[in-house]
């Protein structure tokens, strides 16, 4: 299997998934899930204190994924680090052999489990993309020469289901301008809407991986709607999960994910499967989607 950047440049249909670092030092479960995905995905994202909940650092997990044989995507948010820490971590990623980076602003601290934390947001996603390209050019943000440039492959996120969409598209164009080479979108449910988004996206030379968020129950979908920024599961899917009943809800959720993948397959450049807490189900989803 080609590495992420090579596959992207070769125009392959890309498949990426996510690895949620645990809260605590016991990595057994996470590493087992990651191992199950070896050879099945082009890259594996390591999330960065996802939903503002404190966990093992994404950089450390990326290094472990790399040693396992994965091509990791280093998720880096601006919530917890100022510009010194961000640049330092990007240099750190490079020297550890990590080449892909997903530049994020980050959820606000009150979404998570350390609500009294000082939110940093010294810079933000579009500026972080510029920073990556600056470091790649051999300089830092202050214009100082680096002894050795980075070679990071920068990507970002976009929310095609944002309402209203125009300000989000403005931001998308800024991220493209800032040098983002690929986008892993927030969860896609509305295919017609996604088609419209792709019309805008296709004006730019960037690759779009549709975000597939795996649902396991109606309760989970409702929880996501109420607690996770940027996610809105439509009512018809919640009803479908509810109608499936307790026993079959998970299988229905996997079907929804698989059928969404099939629906977007010819529209974009790949999929990014976010199976929060159900990483072990990713191979099954891929099988059902015919990937």
């Amino acid at each position, binding site marked *: 299997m080609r590495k992420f950047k090579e596959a992207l440049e070769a125009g392959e249909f890309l498949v990426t998934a996510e690895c949620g670092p645990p809260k605590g030092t016991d990595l057994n479960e996470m590493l087992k899930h990651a191992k199950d995905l070896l050879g099945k995905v082009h890259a594996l994202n390591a999330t960065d204190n996802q939903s503002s909940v404190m966990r093992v650092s994404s950089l450390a997990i990326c290094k472990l994924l790399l040693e396992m044989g994965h091509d990791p995507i280093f998720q880096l948010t601006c919530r917890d680090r100022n510009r010194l820490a961000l640049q330092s971590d990007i240099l750190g990623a490079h020297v550890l052999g990590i080449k892909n980076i997903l530049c994020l602003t980050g959820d*606000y601290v009150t979404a998570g489990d350390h609500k009294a934390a000082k939110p940093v947001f010294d810079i933000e996603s579009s500026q972080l993309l510029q920073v990556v390209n600056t470091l790649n050019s051999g300089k830092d943000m202050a214009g100082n020469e680096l002894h050795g440039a980075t070679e990071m492959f920068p990507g970002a996120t976009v929310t095609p289901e944002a309402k209203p969409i*125009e300000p989000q598209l403005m931001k998308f164009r800024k991220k493209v301008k*800032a040098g983002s080479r690929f986008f892993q979108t927030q969860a896609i449910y509305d295919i017609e809407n996604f088609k419209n988004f792709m019309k805008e996206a296709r004006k730019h030379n960037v690759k779009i991986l549709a975000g597939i968020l795996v649902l396991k129950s109606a309760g989970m979908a409702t929880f996501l709607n109420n607690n996770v920024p940027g996610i809105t599961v439509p009512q018809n899917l919640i009803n479908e999960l509810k109608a499936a009943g307790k026993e079959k809800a998970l299988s229905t959720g996997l079907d929804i994910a698989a059928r969404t993948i099939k629906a977007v397959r010819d529209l974009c450049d790949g999929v990014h499967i976010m199976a929060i807490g159900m990483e072990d189900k990713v191979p099954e989803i891929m099988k059902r989607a015919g990937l």
Partner: protein
Amino acid sequence: MIISKQKNLDEILEAIKDNNSFFLVGCSECASLCGTGDEAALEDMKKKLEEKGKKVTGYFVAKTGCQVLGTKVELKKFKNEVEGAEALIIMSCGAGVQAAVEIFKDKHVYTANDTLFLGNMTRFRVFDERCSLCGECIVNETGGICPVTNCPKGLLNGPCGGMNNGKCEVDREKDCVWVRIYNRLNDLKRLDLIEEIAEPKDYGKHTKPSALNSKKD
């Protein structure tokens, strides 16, 4: 104006527990508009302290409590009351408290208030924050609306992915400021102002504590 809110009484009593007699100072500017430093607030505080067995030697509402020299002059009229008190309780913003510290070198100075933000009064004693005194105003590029203040993340380049139906990720009751900015500039046909990527802010322009001498030479 500077928005302040009175601390709860237990917290005030705990802070002042080592002293028994007090002179109270309010402020006729912001703290009066907030109801935290006007005459009524001072009278109320006097009553509550006396109920708890404390002595209040007197009180006065400074014209502008953060103005050190003016307040010092005004206080001359209350020389005896001040001298008769072990300590002062200032009922204004944090600037007023520290003006008092400068004036009263040999007395304890306590605050009765928490100082919250620079605010607009939208209705009587209803305030919201629209400017955070960042030292580098960018509203000429953002339709006159400040994203540094009105976006919890202070984003300079558009909404985050948490914006939902035009509402803010952090407070679903609040409109996303970037949707407001976008709509306003769209109406004014000036979206060109936010097309380019805004540079990171220069926090070097706001190293605390700030100081300014704007006197002409």
